[in-house]
């Protein structure tokens, strides 16, 4: 289907000789929020890192199979170019400590030596911060260091930084795991707003969060895709016994 922005076909990921992902097949529709769910060690973070080719940063890591972004194989081109189109937000907020808020947002352009006119970059910074729901709080402090913000604000700054690159897909790797409940709920609200303009893939071990934020859910267990479907269906009528056991808290 033309509507599928990301297709994962017969995909395997290894670390050294250990198989972490075993024959994954998935199709994600454009501008939806998808969550990848599973117990720790099931390979969900690896799957996310394979989508923007961060997995291969370790010397011992390699992959087999195809991941297609708009029908183009991402493993057939430069990883740098893929990462510019697929943004990522990490478990712990990691704004660049040597840059101010403005430069943090525009960092993707600066670091890649993409020349922008001042008016262009001003616009991108404002738009991104508005999208990340941070503009009102930092508009007067754009030239202060980002590290003085609270944890939740730092995480939204990181989201703004990723959004500034106008990515096709935004990956969130347990992005709320280090935040307090208030900040977490703010980020969740943000995901709801953002999914109209960008496809969002969320990795979480928080079952309730997956239910709250996502349209589709994939359940991974020890490297295999057990089930994938609309979040409502998967939560109410899981087809596989393992999914049901995980969702009801029998393991995980």
């Amino acid at each position, binding site marked *: 289907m033309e509507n599928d922005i990301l297709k994962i076909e017969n995909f395997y990921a290894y670390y050294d000789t250990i198989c972490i992902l075993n024959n994954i097949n998935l199709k994600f529709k454009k501008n939806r929020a998808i969550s990848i769910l599973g117990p720790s060690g099931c390979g969900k973070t690896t799957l996310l890192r394979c989508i923007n080719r*961060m997995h291969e940063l370790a010397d011992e890591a390699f992959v087999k199979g195809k991941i297609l972004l708009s029908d183009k194989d991402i493993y057939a081109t430069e990883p*740098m170019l893929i990462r510019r189109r697929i943004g990522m937000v990490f478990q712990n907020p*990691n704004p660049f400590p040597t840059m101010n808020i403005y430069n943090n947002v525009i960092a993707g352009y600066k*670091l890649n030596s993409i020349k922008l006119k001042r008016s262009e970059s001003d616009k991108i910074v404002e738009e991104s911060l508005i999208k990340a729901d941070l503009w009102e709080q930092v508009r007067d402090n754009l030239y202060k260091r980002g590290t003085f913000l609270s944890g939740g604000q730092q995480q939204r700054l990181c989201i703004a*930084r990723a959004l500034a690159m106008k990515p096709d897909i935004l990956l969130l790797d347990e992005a709320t795991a280090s935040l307090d409940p208030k900040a977490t709920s703010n980020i969740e609200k943000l995901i709801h707003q953002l999914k109209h303009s960008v496809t969002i893939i969320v990795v979480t071990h928080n079952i309730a969060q997956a239910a709250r934020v996502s349209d589709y859910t994939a359940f991974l267990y020890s490297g295999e895709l057990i089930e994938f479907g609309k979040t409502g269906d998967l939560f109410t009528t899981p087809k596989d016994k393992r999914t049901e056991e995980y969702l009801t808290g029998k393991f995980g």
Partner: protein
Amino acid sequence: MEKRLKIRQIQDKLFTVIVALFSIAIILPLFFIIFYIVRNGAAEINWHFITSLPKPVGETGGISNAIVGTTELIGIAALIAIPLALFTGIYMKEFEKSKLAAVVSSLTDLLQGVPSIVIGIVCYLWIVLPLRSFSALSGSVALAIMMLPMIIKSTYHSLKLVPDSLKEASLALGTPYYRTVMKVIVPAASSGIITGIILSISRVAGETAPLLFTAFGNPFMNLNVTKPVNSLPLLIFNYATSPFSDWQKQAWGASLILIIMVSALNLLSKIMEHKWKTTY
């Protein structure tokens, strides 16, 4: 039982007193050294002393050539040592598991322990012999070799403190590896790296032994890197061991200036370390 406890307590008190006395005794030589240098040196220092050239015994000369020479030697040494040490330090951090990194690490430790006079000999063999002349260049190379291990180590240790998450953040934005290192990781470690550089400069600013048969000393002003050049420590050595009391007095003045220079650099490194520290 009671008595035994008393003895143990007295023993403990006695030990405390001894340890305290020995520690405080360290202040004494420092006080004496600083006292003598300030007392004898302060009388010598004036504008004329700093800005004029050395004169024959009997006339009041200055040490301007030594101040300029020291600056020249250190400047060239820094130009040689900083890029080399910086990239070596980055290599050690980024390729930490490689065999070469292990070799670099142990040889750096070794180089730090090599007596400075030995480095003087080697630079004599490497540069003075082929050029057939003592030269500022050979002195600078000697100082640069002494700076290397200090800067390599401080670079490596500062880079190690930078969390991996920053590297990931940069790579995830599609930044190539080399720009991630040079524009994200190195700047994040910059306060530590610069502190190391300043400390290494302050350490070699007072070095004499490696300059004895490289920079050699020169009573005139010289900026040509292929000719011998004077430096503050060399001047102090030559004047202090001379039989003329005039020159000995000037050596006190030069010592005071050298100590002020070195202390200012140390102070600067302290300030860098505390105030400009990057919080992650």
